[in-house]
Structures are given as C-alpha cells and as structure tokens.
C-alpha cells in the first residue's frame, strides 16, 4: 500500500481493511483520563483537534525521564548527560521514521507547529521573499499558518495570496494553478483543516507547485493523528506538526525540512547548542539539526513525543485511520439526521472533525449544555476566523475525534444535541 496520505480514505473504504485489528476498548484503558468523571458524568472527550489526551506510556516516559534520567544534553561528560542525550536523539530517530524522512538531521525539534511555521517564515521566508513577491496559502488555514506569513510580507513588502475553496470546503485547484507565478516564493497549506476536517490533496498541490519550482510547506498538525504521512512520497519541502495533538506532551513539535533547504537557511534564534564556535568577532553555526535548536531543548517533551509515536505505531496508523474513518462517518450520518443541523465542511475527503450549527442557537450555548453532560466539544472560530467569514458565520460547534472515541460516545453527543434543542424549544 502506498503511503500517499491524500489517497488514504478512499482505500480504507474497502470492507477488508475497515476496523481490522483495532480494539477500541483496549485502547481506552491506555488513557487514564478517560476514566475521570466530569460534572459527575463519564467524560466524553470530543475536543481532540484542540489537544489529545495522553496514554499512560507517554506519562510514564516523561516521569521516568525526570525520576531517573534527567540531565542537560549535548555537553556533559557524565553518565546521565550521555544517557539523556541518547534518549533525546533516539526520539529524533523515532520522528524521522514516523515521517519517513531521509535523514534524522532533517528533524528539528521546536515548541509546536506554530513555532515551526514562524521559523520557516523568518529564515527561509526572509531570505527568499522580497518586494512584490507572493506567499500562497489557502482559505482554510489556521491562524498559525496565516499570521507568520503576514508578518513576513509586512517586513519584506510581499503579498499574501489565498487559494479559494468551494461550498463543501474543498480547495479549487484550478484557481491555485492560476495563482502560481514567478512571484510565488512559497506555498503553505494545511493537510487537514482544523475547522472543517477537509483533507487537502497535498501530493497534487506539491506537484503543481514544484512544476513551477516553488517549495511547499505542509501544516500537518491535524493530519499526523489521523493519517500515515510520508514526507518523501509527498516530496514536501517542509512539514510541521505538534506533539500534543498526537497523544504526546505540549511544548514539543517538529519541523521537517529537506536538508538542502535547511542547510542554506540562516539560523532562527541564537544561543547555546546552535553554535560550533563563538568569538566576539564571529560565530560558526552548528550543523543540522542543532543550528535551529538554540538553548536547552525540551528533552522530556521529545522523549514523550517519541513514546507517543511508538504508541500509535504499535496500534498501526492504517488501523487508526480506518477505525476513525468509521467513527467519523457514523457521527456525520447521526448528527446530520438531527433536525436543524447544518454541517460546515462537507468535503469528500475528511478526517477527525465534525463542525456544525444547530438552528440559530449559538455554538457557545451548545457547548455549555453539552458540558453539563460531560461532553467536551469546542465552540468558537477555532483560530480560523477567515474560514468562518468565508461561510458567513461567527463560530461553529466542533466535535473532533481521536483514536479512543467510540460510536457510543457519538450517541451521547447526539442525545446531548437533542437536549440542546429541548432547552431552546
């Protein structure tokens, strides 16, 4: 099976693959928080696009590091420092395999997807974008893949252009083709939309951009928890994601970049670890990946992320994707059947997200009423105000799914929405 992510859901519709080898009850036991009561009710956590819960193995890996393995890395001559360095670098290797990157040195640890995009905008972007040049993004980007490019364009006199979408929330590729020009210096696109759930055809987008010699950054924050990703098969130039949406800790994320690009880029922040020698006259920067990792890194975070990736690999990303697809399809059908529901984001290829409106009831009221039943959803603009404006709305209610969510939880959501209707009847 190819690992081309944007083809995945169609393949998974074959009954042979669906749900095979995935025991959700067993998986739920791995997540201690799912046993918690919220307002006296069993927690139904449907806010995974905001952040995911953590399995015990991740919590244990972090505790073990602080209890038995903590030291600063890359500098100590003592046992613990050597041990912590090994663990940290092993986590980098785990990320490399997870993304199928060619080199471990192409994996830069950062705080999250947001920092990764800022890093690329302020290093690659600042050296490549000049007056009149253009940065191309899509209408469905999270603020974190809009604002860093706006800042860059302001600094350099560049222009931010936006690829439009249709009413279903799918990109208009013919419009994208028209927007590509010699002025385009980079394309930055989300693989999965956090507000709509759309899976974008990033492989195709990259092909189209590359045929004009334009590099592409893929925001994978909402993709890595749901799809198998292969950066070499995608041929993307940069790929970014956050650990905490992938069942790992907060404060750790990844920038993947092709080594030729990373090598040519100036450093992002100055400090320790990112240098090989310093005098007051001149500093020689360290090699990759350390050139972009100034200061003591989030060692425990990297180790926790490594444990999270080991965990999802153990389940098999294909199994996770197949199971989640089944739950999302079930949820979409059940919620759509409720009178007064309008689903926002009805793309053919979707993952993880069900955004909706109910009559003229404000999403915050929906969120408050569901919360009383222990059901956690998000209500608001999901840090994607332009896409809300595109649909002429201020906010949506969003249920977002992870690998531990069940059809029974979807039923609880549906009952909860019926309660909302009753309160407002």
């Amino acid at each position, binding site marked *: 099976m190819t690992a081309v992510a944007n083809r995945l859901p169609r393949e998974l519709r074959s009954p042979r693959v669906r749900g095979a080898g995935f025991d959700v009850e067993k998986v739920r036991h791995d997540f201690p928080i799912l046993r918690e009561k919220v307002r006296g009710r069993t927690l139904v956590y449907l806010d995974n696009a905001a952040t995911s819960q953590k399995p015990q193995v991740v919590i244990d890996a972090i505790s073990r590091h602080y209890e038995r393995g903590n030291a600063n890395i890359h500098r100590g001559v003592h046992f613990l420092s050597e041990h912590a360095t090994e663990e940290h670098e092993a986590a980098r290797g785990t990320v490399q395999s997870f993304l199928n990157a060619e080199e471990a040195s192409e994996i830069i640890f950062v705080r999250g997807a947001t920092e990764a995009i800022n890093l690329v905008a302020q290093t690659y972007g600042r050296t490549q974008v000049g007056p009149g040049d253009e940065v191309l993004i899509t209408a469905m980007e999270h603020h974190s893949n809009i604002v860093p490019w706006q800042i860059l364009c302001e600094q350099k006199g560049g222009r931010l252009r936006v690829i439009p979408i249709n009413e279903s929330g799918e990109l208009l590729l013919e419009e994208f083709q028209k927007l590509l020009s010699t002025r385009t210096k980079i394309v930055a696109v989300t693989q999965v939309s956090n507000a709509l759930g759309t899976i974008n055809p990033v492989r195709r987008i990259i092909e189209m951009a590359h045929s004009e010699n334009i590099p592409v950054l893929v925001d994978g924050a909402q993709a890595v928890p749901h799809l198998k990703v292969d950066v070499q098969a995608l041929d993307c130039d940069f790929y970014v994601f956050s650990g905490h949406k992938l069942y790992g800790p907060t404060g750790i994320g990844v920038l993947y970049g092709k080594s030729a690009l990373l090598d040519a880029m100036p450093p992002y922040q100055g400090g320790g670890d990112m240098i090989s020698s310093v005098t007051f006259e001149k500093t020689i920067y360290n090699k990759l990946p350390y050139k972009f990792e100034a200061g003591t890194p989030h060692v425990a975070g990297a180790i926790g992320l490594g444990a999270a990736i080991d965990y999802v690999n153990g389940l098999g990303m294909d199994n996770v994707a197949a199971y989640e697809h089944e739950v999302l399809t079930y949820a979409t059908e059940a919620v759509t059947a409720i009178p007064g529901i309008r689903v926002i984001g009805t793309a053919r290829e979707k993952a993880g997200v069900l955004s909706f409106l109910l009559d003229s009831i404000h999403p915050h009221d929906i969120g408050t009423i569901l919360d*009383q039943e222990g059901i956690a959803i998000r209500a*608001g603009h999901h840090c994607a105000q332009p896409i809300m404006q595109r649909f002429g709305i201020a906010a949506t209610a969003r249920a977002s799914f992870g690998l531990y969510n069940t059809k029974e939880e979807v039923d609880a959501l549906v009952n909860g929405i019926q309660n909302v209707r009753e309160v407002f009847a």
Partner: protein
Amino acid sequence: MSDLRELYQDVILEHSKAPRNYRQLATANHKAEGYNPLCGDHFTLYLDLKGNSIHDISFQGSGCAISKASASMMTQSVKGKTREEAEKLFEQFHKLVTGQANGNQADLGKLAVFSGVSQFPVRVKCATLAWHTLQAAMEGKQEPVSTE
C-alpha cells in the same frame, strides 16, 4: 440539568429569541461596539443621552443566548435612568453574575434571572459584554470593547 435551567431561564431564552430595543437608533448621540472575537459575540449599542440621563437606548448584533438576552434586558433596565444609576446597576449586576451578591440586589428587578450565570464562570463574559459596551458608549470610547 438543574444548573442549566438556572442559566437558561425562560425569560432569558425568550429575550434571546425576541430581543427588545433591537434596532438602530436614529437619535443616537453615542454609539459603541462590543466584540468578543473568540465567541463571535458582536453588538453595537446606540445611546441617546439627554444631559445626564439615558433618554433612549437600542442595540443590534449577534451572539449567544446569554449575551443577547443580557443586552436586551439591560436596555429595558437602564432606559430613563441617569448615568450614575446605570453604573450602579451594572455594579450590582456584576456582583450577581460573579456570585458576590450580598442580598442587596433589590434594584436589579428582572435582571435577577441572571443569577444562574454565577455557576458558569466562563459565561460571565457573555452576560457582561453589553454592560461594558454601555459604559464605553457613555464614556465615548472609540475602540470596540471586549470581555474576553
């Protein structure tokens, strides 16, 4: 559900569906904007101040049931009052929705239905948005106000 019924009282639901004084005000000499971007609550408040008293007041916009009902009932409560009386009412209302009421809320009248908000701390910003916007209008502030 009991806390929920306390929050979404019939009077509140009724005002959110059919808000009073929901229009532009041709005679307005003060105007202010209240905007909570995270929620999407967005109101414009129109004020006709004659001397020191609120001769007429209206609002328009969109938001959740709590913010809309609060705006609607506020316009009814402060109409005909002086600025000082309106400020004092806001003070009492604020105490009510933040759970600091000391039993001395007689002036609040119908606004007492918002007492349930105190059980939902994240919704205090919804209930108070219109009031902060009123303050801004009376003070002639140009910038939109937010309670987020």
